[in-house]
């Protein structure tokens, strides 16, 4: 038998596999070029930029209030948090003090958005291990949250909610009613969803020890949000640098131990309970007062006043034409977004638009650790790991 292969070179047996850009198992446009040894991943290289829309360049040419719709399209699973983060950045630059009522209203909106974000992320982890039921079940509850957003601002997904200095209108009685209903009915739903997955043998086997990362590596990679907390680091912007009166509320920061997919899932589950707690407190203690700060040079006046009041008309005109004076300065402000610390670095030269605006997008920063997290695992584990990281294509590519 002279033709027998004796020296078998495994290196040549590696297969290149293109996962994405459009693949039904990756939620968004992500491309991963995987080097596979059979079913084991040896190496991976991510490609991003498929939906890059040059937001930072556009932001250099738009007045501040026109940048809010751009922030919607970063992490579109929780756009109100992005909107609020942007408003607060500008308010910090201008030195605007918002009334307590505005802070509490914002907290309610932001925590609702966080629940919507975590619901989708966690139920999608279920889908990727073959449990579709939870996903179809909780999607309806995301719809209810979107109904509340619709009641507040008229939009559902890309909300453009709020204004610089406050909100465009007060909560209507119907809106308060909807929030109350949600608060009342949501715990039962979340409990049922918990029962479906948390102690499910198949789910646990598929997620425990999958896609893990140590706390040191996570910190070094700039992880934030639930992904960092799953490794055991209790860094939460809401507690560390409280904004929008978060210091008034009583909530805990859930942390994990192993930093694997199951821990990320569990941290998000707990955070939804905490968000529920925060909303309840904020709604119960919602202070009376105005729903906007006294900054007529930035807060667009209500339409009825524009049509009937000379001063409001002048301010409206000045805001739309970008005539308001902006201080020269630079400011960094960050909020706890759905998937991590969402930061805005705004440099103003006094012009009507930002001189430079940089978004610190959490998923852009932690997605680079994906290669390290999936090396040596199987393809099916890599899919679950990606969905548990909550990488949002819009935010990744800005």
């Amino acid at each position, binding site marked *: 038998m002279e033709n027998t292969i004796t020296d078998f070179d495994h290196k040549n047996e590696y297969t290149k596999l293109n996962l994405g850009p459009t693949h039904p198992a990756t939620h968004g446009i992500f491309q991963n070029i995987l080097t596979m040894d059979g079913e084991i991943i040896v190496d991976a290289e991510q490609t991003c930029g498929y939906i890059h829309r040059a937001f*930072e360049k*556009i932001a250099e040419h738009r007045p501040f209030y026109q940048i809010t719709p751009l922030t919607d399209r970063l992490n579109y699973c929780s756009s109100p948090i992005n909107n609020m983060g942007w408003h607060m950045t500008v308010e*910090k630059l201008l030195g605007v003090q918002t009334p307590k009522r505005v802070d509490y209203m914002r907290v309610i909106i932001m925590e609702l958005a966080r629940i919507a974000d975590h619901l989708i992320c966690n139920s999608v982890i279920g889908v990727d291990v073959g449990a579709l039921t939870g996903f179809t079940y909780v999607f309806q509850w995301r719809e209810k949250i979107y109904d509340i957003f619709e009641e507040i601002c008229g939009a559902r997904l890309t909300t453009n909610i709020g204004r610089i200095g406050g909100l465009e209108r007060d909560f209507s009685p119907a809106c308060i009613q909807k929030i109350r209903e949600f608060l009342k009915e949501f715990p039962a739903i979340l409990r049922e969803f918990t029962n479906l997955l948390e102690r499910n043998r198949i789910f646990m086997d598929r997620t425990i020890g999958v896609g893990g990362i140590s706390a040191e590596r996570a910190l070094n990679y*700039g992880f934030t949000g639930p992904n960092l907390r799953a490794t055991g680091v209790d860094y939460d912007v809401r507690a560390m640098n409280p904004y929008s009166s978060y210091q008034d509320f009583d909530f805990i920061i859930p942390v994990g131990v192993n930093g694997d997919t199951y821990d990320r899932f569990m941290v998000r589950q707990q955070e939804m309970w905490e968000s529920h707690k925060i909303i309840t407190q904020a709604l119960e203690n919602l202070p009376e007062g105005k729903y906007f700060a006294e900054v007529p040079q930035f807060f667009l006046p209500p339409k009825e006043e524009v049509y009937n009041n000379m001063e409001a008309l002048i301010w409206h005109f000045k805001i739309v034409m970008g005539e308001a004076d902006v201080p020269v300065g630079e400011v960094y402000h960050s909020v706890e977004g759905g998937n991590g*610390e969402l930061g805005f670095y705004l440099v103003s030269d006094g012009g009507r638009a930002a001189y430079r605006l940089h978004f*610190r997008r959490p998923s852009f*920063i932690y997605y680079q650790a994906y290669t390290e997290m999936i090396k040596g695992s199987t393809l099916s584990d890599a899919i679950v790991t990606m969905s548990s990281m909550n990488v949002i294509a819009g935010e990744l590519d800005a």
Partner: protein
Amino acid sequence: MSEVNNAFLLNELQDQFSANILSVEEPYGLLTIEVSKDINLALVTFLNKHPQIQMQFLTDVCGMHHPDLKGKELAVVYHLHSLVNNLRLRVKCHMSIDAPQINSITSIYSAANWQERETYDFFGIEFIGHPNLKRILNVEEMDYFPMRKEFPLEDPTRTDKNDNYFGR
């Protein structure tokens, strides 16, 4: 052990790098220092390893372009965060547009990898020692750096729009 705050941080930095600190500001309570670009790696290494400051978290890296500042048109801005002391620091390193090279800090912070690639992609700042310096969000065939100020948002030869009233 004294409290780690902006004053303490600045004091430590002055001791170590006094000759290279070009300016110090504190806009909105965030200590901002401008240092010469040669010491960026030494500076972040010092801050990372310092037993008290412990700036082990790199929040953000981004580029800046100031066409009017002759000789220091481009800048890299780092936001560092010490989670232990809850203290942030902003570091700016300016450089000439003719020699846009700066040390990469990926050896200290893995998080810098893609952020430096992004900065290179948009501003053309080359990071010496970066393991894989290529474009990340734009197409690789692109031969210019779009976030530089000389590139307008729209085609400047358009005549169907009057920008006298709108636009920057």
